[in-house]
């Protein structure tokens, strides 16, 4: 293995790349889907229409970007979906519809996220339990806590000022007319995540760990701490997604269910390699956008449900395969 890496590094001169090859294919897929959406529905040809699409896609995009931190190290985080449920239930129970308690609820939500991320990370990094098992266990425990705390039926609404983040839209904004608050939260969160991933040593080391954990360890990378922080970031992203999703749609016991797989699919579509070592924020973001655009397009076409599930599955696999092929040829 070591020998292979060495020859790989030495013998291959940098190949001259054609410019279009460097474009992430997910962006192309997304633009095609978007064009189809615009073609079918006049609403999406306008700025407010696109903004509302972006508003609804925000939770998945943030989740997929957060999940990418774990995926590139070669791990999985399956607990994010039920963490969203817990965040929404917790916010409803803490505030009970009282807007003056919103800031406490937000602090508590991020506190819960931090705790869940730290536990996930610690068990994976120091306990040597595979992350898929650790986070599956966490998925069940977190869901259990949410059910126990709420008694199975959440009591109380989310106050208006808490729902503000996910639901409110500023009107009469120059150029785009309408600006959902969720989009601002999205841009802010992504700025932080992109910075962490691409512009800090922390991010670069994550990729290195995913590519070859042993080499990373031998070269003095604090592998365990890095891994743990990756889970913390994923969990905090899930909390943000939960606040947006709860804000958008209100309290229910099912909110967040299935989002762990959506976020993972989104990242894979965006070219994040499931076993680690490769991935980018651009990919994760456009993966999330592509996934949401696909849902929207199939909604707009109005396929019957079984056919839709089949088509959705095939397109997802095709998109992931296309991206995987492209990253394969580049190596």
């Amino acid at each position: 293995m070591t020998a292979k890496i060495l020859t790989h590094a030495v013998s291959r001169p940098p190949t001259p790349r054609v410019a279009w090859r460097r474009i992430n294919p997910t962006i192309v897929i997304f633009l095609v889907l978007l064009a189809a959406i615009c073609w079918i529905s006049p609403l999406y040809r306008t700025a407010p229409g696109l903004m509302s699409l972006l508003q609804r896609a925000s939770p998945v995009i943030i989740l997929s970007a957060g999940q990418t931190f774990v995926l590139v190290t070669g791990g999985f985080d399956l607990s994010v979906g039920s963490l969203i449920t817990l965040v929404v239930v917790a916010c409803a129970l803490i505030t009970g519809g009282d807007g003056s308690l919103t800031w406490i609820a937000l602090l508590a939500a991020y506190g819960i996220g931090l705790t869940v991320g730290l536990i996930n990370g610690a068990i994976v990094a120091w306990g040597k339990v595979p992350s898929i098992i650790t986070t599956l266990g966490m998925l069940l425990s977190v869901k259990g806590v949410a059910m126990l705390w709420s008694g199975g039926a959440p009591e109380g609404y989310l106050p208006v000022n808490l729902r503000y983040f996910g639901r409110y839209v500023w009107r009469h904004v120059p150029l785009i007319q309408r600006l959902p608050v969720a989009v601002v939260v999205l841009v802010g969160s992504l700025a932080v995540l992109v910075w962490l991933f691409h512009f800090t040593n922390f991010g670069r080391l994550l990729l290195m760990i995913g590519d070859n954990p042993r080499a990373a360890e031998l070269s003095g990378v604090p592998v365990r701490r890095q891994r743990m922080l990756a889970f913390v970031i994923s969990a905090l992203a899930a909390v943000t997604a939960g606040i947006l999703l709860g804000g958008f749609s209100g309290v229910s016991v099912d909110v967040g269910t299935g989002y762990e797989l959506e976020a993972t699919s989104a990242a894979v579509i965006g070219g994040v390699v499931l076993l680690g070592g490769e991935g980018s924020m651009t990919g994760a973001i456009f993966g999330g956008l592509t996934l949401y655009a696909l849902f929207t397009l199939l909604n707009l076409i109005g396929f019957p449900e079984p056919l839709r599930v089949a088509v959705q599955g095939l397109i997802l696999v095709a998109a992931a395969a296309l991206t995987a092929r492209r990253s394969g040829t580049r190596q």
Partner: protein
Amino acid sequence: MKRKTAWRLGVSGAALMVATTLTATAWAQTATSDSTAMAKEFAYEKALMSAKPIGPADKPWLQSLSSATVDTAKYKKAPPYRVCFSNASVSNPWRVVGWKVMQAEAELHKSEIASLSYADAQDKDDKQISDIRAFVTGGKCDVLIVSPHTSDALTPVVEEACKVLPVITFDRSVNTTCPVTAVRTIGGYAYGIAGATYVVDHMPKGGKLLELRTAPGIDVFETRDDAAAKIFTDAGIKPIGVEYTGADNAKTKAVVSDYLSRFGKIDAVWVDFGAMSVAVAEAFEDAGQDYPIITGEDQEDYLQKWKQEGFKGIAPTYPAYQWRTALIAALDVLQGKPVYGPNWILPQPIITSANLDQYVNAKMPPLHYAACGCEGMPGYPERWGGKP
């Protein structure tokens, strides 16, 4: 190497998804009921909707739509009684509300009940089968109440139990008449008929109707939709779409927003499950449009929204007060009193704008079911999460 792995993952993923789709399709097909049986049940439930119930009008959980009774003299025992209850699950808010109703009912009979033993099957047939066996062989039950998870799977074990002690079923039933009585409400067709008829009567001619469904292949939702679809077809209304939302609020809002963008205007939204209704209303708010007709159910969030915004609504119910009835029936049986049976058919109230005030209560939590029959019970409203 990575490339190969990715492909392999892709291929197995595709195979998995195709398999899932095929199973889902097959499942949906088997669930489609035979049309003559459907027509018969439809007519039966429709007739029951206008039948006059027997019993005290202010206590619907004691009423019945069929006058037939079962003699229970052979089960008569001296109190106090050991009651055992095998519950399918408490995995949704309706069941949570119902289980609290039953516990409160037990408190009302403190002197007659020695113990209320409880087993939660967590939505698993095999767990419920072993729960029931444990109750029967344990010999510590005088009567067994069962809320079956599925009818077919639970039938044999309920038959075993019937040989040893009196059994009462409620909510879903089993395919045997051995239980002393099966407590039920009118049914899913009646639910579908009520909402759909309201839409037909109040939607402007040529109006656009969107049907929202929870998931395919679940009996209760299938019957609701079968009935509604029949009413709409008979009235010459073809919905602009039938969509599955999984009762997920975010998906519901997204689906409705997309339909609004496609059709510009929607005049009525019919739902097979009231948990989605508020999300529907919010989608119209966010789009800056007037509310259409939105059907719902007796969840408080829908009732409060309906009252506050004054849109055209209707709430057929699947009353949670049947959890009281089951326990009352069990105690009656042990006291040798005749009970309504072999089916105790409870009335199924329909909430309209005329009687909305009777059900809406801003102090109750959003997912509380208003037809719980629990207003006068011990611990109301705190037990159900309400504010005093």
